[in-house]
């Protein structure tokens, strides 16, 4: 069975009882082209018109570099935090039955649904120095709103459902028997979680991480309210693009967009490679 699957992998099309391969593939390609490829190609074309020298000059502009650094570092930190808390949240939802579990389950999806600007404004109100939570943090010397920390918090709120929703179904599939087997072999709770359960979840966790990261890099609405948007400190790259557009500096805007696209693409590619490796490593496919 295994060899049949890998042998069939490179076939143009797998024999299937379900018709419509040509139609669906054609639709998919046309759709992706219209929605994603043409806009991206336009972006590439626009920035190519800049020429290498201008492009390099624009993306090495100090303010641009600062914004890129803020965007990618905060998105990375938020994605890592989301992996930890997303896995814990998924665990609680999968493994325990408690009153209100369904409500908690539904709350996880809220960041998908509410306008991100609303989330941003609400978080700002909470974490501002005179806000409900901010007023407790200020005496401790912790500033959240209008700093990169605020951006991280906004991105955590936005990215959480990605991790929970990718890990949850895989976690559900891990049978209780596997845990019982580990316990019967003398593993304690800690060893069972870290050596038996989590390694099996690595591919799903990586997927969630990649989604949360990608979402964080591109996030705009919720961040601009809490960030304070101080150049070199808390100004994110998407905001800088908008600023450049408002200044009719289309060249700069496209250059920033292109470099973001390239970096994001390389990061996602790397994650995908690690994921493919871990899937093989953990015996999901051959």
């Amino acid at each position, binding site marked *: 069975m295994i060899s049949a699957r890998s042998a069939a992998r490179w076939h143009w099309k797998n024999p299937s009882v379900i018709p419509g391969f040509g139609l669906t593939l054609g639709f998919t390609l046309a759709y992706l082209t219209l929605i994603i490829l043409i806009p991206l190609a336009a972006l590439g074309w626009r920035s190519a018109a800049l020429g290498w020298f201008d492009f390099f000059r624009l993306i090495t502009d100090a303010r641009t570099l600062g914004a890129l650094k803020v965007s990618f570092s905060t998105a990375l930190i938020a994605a890592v935090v989301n992996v930890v808390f997303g896995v814990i949240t998924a665990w609680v939802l999968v493994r325990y039955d408690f009153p209100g579990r369904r409500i908690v389950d539904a709350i996880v999806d809220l960041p998908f649904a509410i306008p991100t600007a609303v989330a941003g404004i609400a978080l700002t109100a909470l974490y501002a120095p005179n806000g409900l939570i901010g007023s407790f943090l200020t005496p401790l010397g912790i500033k959240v709103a209008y700093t990169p920390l605020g951006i991280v918090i906004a991105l955590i709120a936005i990215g959480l459902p990605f991790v929970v929703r990718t890990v949850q179904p895989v976690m559900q599939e891990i049978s209780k028997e596997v845990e*019982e087997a580990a316990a*019967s072999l003398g593993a304690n709770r800690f*060893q069972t979680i870290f050596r038996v359960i989590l390694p099996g979840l690595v591919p799903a966790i990586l997927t969630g991480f990649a989604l949360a990261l990608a979402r964080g890099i591109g996030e705009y609405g919720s961040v601009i309210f809490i960030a304070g948007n101080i150049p070199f400190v808390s100004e994110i790259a998407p905001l800088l693009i908008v600023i450049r557009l408002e200044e009719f500096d289309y060249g700069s805007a496209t250059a920033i967009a292109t470099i973001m696209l390239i970096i994001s693409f390389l990061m996602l590619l790397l994650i995908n490679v690690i994921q493919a490796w871990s899937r093989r490593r953990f015996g999901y496919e051959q």
Partner: protein
Amino acid sequence: MEIRVEKIRKEFDLYPALHDVSLDIKSGELIALLGPSGSGKTTLLRLIAGLEQPTQGRIFFGNEDASYKSVRERNVGFVFQHYALFRHMTVAENVAFGLTVRPKAQRPPKAEIRRRALELLDMVQLSGLEKRFPNQLSGGQRQRVALARAMAIEPKVLLLDEPFGALDAKVRKELRRWLREFHDRTGHTTVFVTHDQEEALELADRVVVMSQGKIEQVGSSDDVYDRPNSPFVFSFIGESANLPVTVEGGAVFFHGAPTGLSAQRDGAARLFFRPQDVSLADEGPGFTGPVTASRRLAGTRIAEVELGSSEEPCHVEIEVPLDAAASNGSVLSFRPTRWKLFY
């Protein structure tokens, strides 16, 4: 290691799964827990393993009260029906798992763990597959990995939950014979759960027949087949027929007619016998009725005979010699040679 189960009661959400079950298992014995689904056999096995806690009652390992010890402390080898292998570990890592999770002070050195894992794989005849992942193995191979993994911790007892349930018939037969040899070689006290009576009768030293959370009978294969002690065991194990009879003055009557059988105690009863334990009788008292169906079964012929009145017919199947006149519609008369009454 002897195991003593004392008046164990287990309830799930107030629904009793086991009613005051007691069982003594001798050291080195191979025991089968046999019963239909819902009979509590798996629950009993899981209680012995420590995967469930009893509502009442106690379990002793030797002279030690193990009732409230966790599965980790009991040092039992448990083999699951669906193998429960760790899919992200190689076969060798799976087998070595029980050793690698030991506290540092008791953990053998790495090379020793590896040597032991390979030795166990050799014992279950899987040498050379140690680098594979579980999903690259067949069902029978996976089950043997699970067994090797359970044996790695040098358990006092080996417990198997429907170990062959997920395998196809041929592999199941092979593994059955293999497990018996394995048990004879290692001498572990072994308890396995099965709903397959053939498996239980062939493999086990003693069979524990269970039904509805109770133990019906404990005995050797011969005991439970030849000397069943309850109507349930009689009908659950092997083929059997049963008929409502009455005993009056020491003679057994069926529908008012003498059957030629005699019994001690008077009253209404059910007569149980096996299809092969009958002899055809041309004259004298017996059970007489028309043949409603007859089929050839390897070396014998099975005839279905309709007995009793036409309003409430009883159908029984009996074995008849190949040369007997037992075509449809012909009338047969027979007497059970071995039988049992349950009042």
